[in-house]
């Protein structure tokens, strides 16, 4: 399950949680739980949203009529080097 999720993410496409849920034939809530687990394992990094949004926090604090946060009130993740690395 987690392996299939990582494989999907390694295709380099962008996904909504709902897309991933459809691809893996499960609920968005389980996808979220798995994304959080992958984040904990260092495969993903949260770049936007409640806690981890470095770019957004920086963006809104640092400047000038600063733009809106990328993901609005949602969260966004990207694969880390570890996440992109080759699995045996």
């Amino acid at each position, binding site marked *: 399950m987690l392996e299939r999720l990582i494989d999907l993410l390694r295709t380099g496409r962008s996904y909504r949680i709902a897309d991933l849920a459809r691809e893996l034939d499960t609920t968005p809530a389980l996808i979220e739980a798995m994304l959080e687990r992958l984040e904990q394992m260092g495969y993903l990094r949260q770049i936007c949203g409640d806690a981890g949004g470095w770019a957004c926090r920086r*963006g809104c604090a640092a400047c000038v009529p600063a733009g809106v946060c990328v993901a609005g009130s949602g*969260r966004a993740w990207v694969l880390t080097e570890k996440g992109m690395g080759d699995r045996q």
Partner: protein
Amino acid sequence: MRSDRIPLVALAGQPNVGKSTVFNLLTGLSQHVGNWPGKTIERREGTFICDGRVYRLVDLPGTYSLTANSAEEVIAREFIVREKPDVVVALVDAAILERSLYLVAELVSLPAPVIVGLNMMDVAHQEGLEIDVQKLEAALGVRVVPMSAAHNVGVRELVEAVDQAVRGEYLYAPRRPAIRADHAEVLAEIERLVSPWTPSPYPPHWVALKLLEGDEEITRLMQAHLPAEQWETVHKILKAHEDALVAVASGRYEWIRQVIRAAVSRPRRGQISLTERLDRWAAHPFWGLVILAGILGLAFWLTYTVGLPLVDLLDAHILQPLAGLSRAGLEPISPWLAGLVADGLIGGGGFMLTFLPILVIFFAIMGILEDVGYMARAAYVMDGLMHPMGLHGKSFLPLFLGFGCNVPAVLGTRVIESRRARLLTALLAPLIPCTARMTVVAFLTPIFFGAAATWVSWGVVLLSLVVLAASGMVISRVFLRGERAAFIMELPLYHIPNPRTIGLFVWQRTAEFLRKAVTVILPVSLLVWALSVLPGGTMENSYLAWLGYRLEPLGRLMGLDWRLVVALLSSFIAKENAIATLGVVMGTGEDAGLARLLAQAYPPATGLAFLAVQVLFIPCVATVAALRQEVGWRWTLFNLGFQLTVAVVVGAAVYWLARLGGL
């Protein structure tokens, strides 16, 4: 159950699942609170009675799993392994079963029989979840008791289930998570190797599983108990299967998926289905972009139709009389002072303030779009557009920030791990039209193009995106081949916007703008004014004109005279200074506003070229500073040269094409 002791029941579950409520309901006053040995984590223990039999109940620390990640998890699993409770009650949250079941997946791998307390059934029901308890029991192979502990529902049934289990009437046959076949063989091999040396009371199968997961505690334990040679063999196998952690967790998630699929149904309704229906269009790869372009156009249209009359009103009724008054009042005292106040202060800086209505409306539209939940969709469909350029996920995010301001866009490239991708994204970021540049576009477009302003603004944004896309494509084809990174987004549900949130959004950004107007735009426009009258007192012989005339030959290529060139130069300090400088050099406040003076002085072809150059011209000083910090001087200078070249080439092309087109 062993007859020599009081039956022991452990209460496990994640934080906030209602363990304390159940514990208090069961034990009442017969509980005591202490600490777990050697830890500052609270240990609660008590007794309860069922059918005349006394039970010991221990509340385990709240955990989501049983890895060695935290002290709580280690306490919980050590307790179950060492104290061997007669029953483990796993309390799960029915409303978020997907998160709650991971712990159960781990608990069923331990020897103690598990009973699942399916708490918060009322919440699950409110959220429209339908959970078939019998099917859940069948899928788990574990007794399930539906409950709403907060309403004291199901607690009695839970106690009865525990009682039955202790009396030996519970046929415990859990379905345990499986792991992939190749890893299953490795697991069996490790179990065979460690089994003779596993200290009691650790179950060898569980120890083997934890070793495969790379669990530090168990690894230390077994390293201490295994003979060196034996450990070396085990260690080699583990080293060759470092990815097994993913495989083991993966098996558990597959198990959860099957359980959820068997027992939970979620009829779509209300907000969720509305969001899904809207997203069929708003997040569609093609229609999503059309909708985004439409919304952008509508935002410009609204800004112009509502904002511009207000700007004219402020200009005609406040700014111009003020400039006239101060000129008349100060002229007898000092012509210099009159010039400073009327041209420098009011004509330049003050002029920016009449612009507030436009900005407030623009920020309000942005705020509404964000609060409704649309911005996340905009980001998602824009990401789709970036793919042909080879700019995936990580590069896209900072670029999107650039629409607000290029500074965080450049700083935001830090989320990109690959050095090369980071560098190239940082170089592209200043090509994004930021709000400051859009302010200039918003001001100048209606002056030159009247009713067609919405289309022209939209076209200028499109032009800068096309230049960005072309640059991105070249860069990605040449330098970034094969770099791909997925980007996962959680799109929030659409909801009715909250006026307070939007008000706050508008206020924060307007206050930012005002701060910038006072600290940056005003001083620069005073400096520009000073340069425009020194040394001789007339504009034609000033330092500013001298500089402008030197650069005019380059400007002519794009149809720009020295005043427009100087306006562009001053925009290096802050983009809005382009307008403030025009206010100074065009000399407003006498008989006509800046708008009319500009429209009289320049043909639309020049206006269009100026807009194009303005959005592509070298970034502002803050962005240059950010670039220098992120990519160093060499690449910053490259960026300045690159953008200057692009701006001149595109500006000249726009000017001559517009001339050919009769503008």
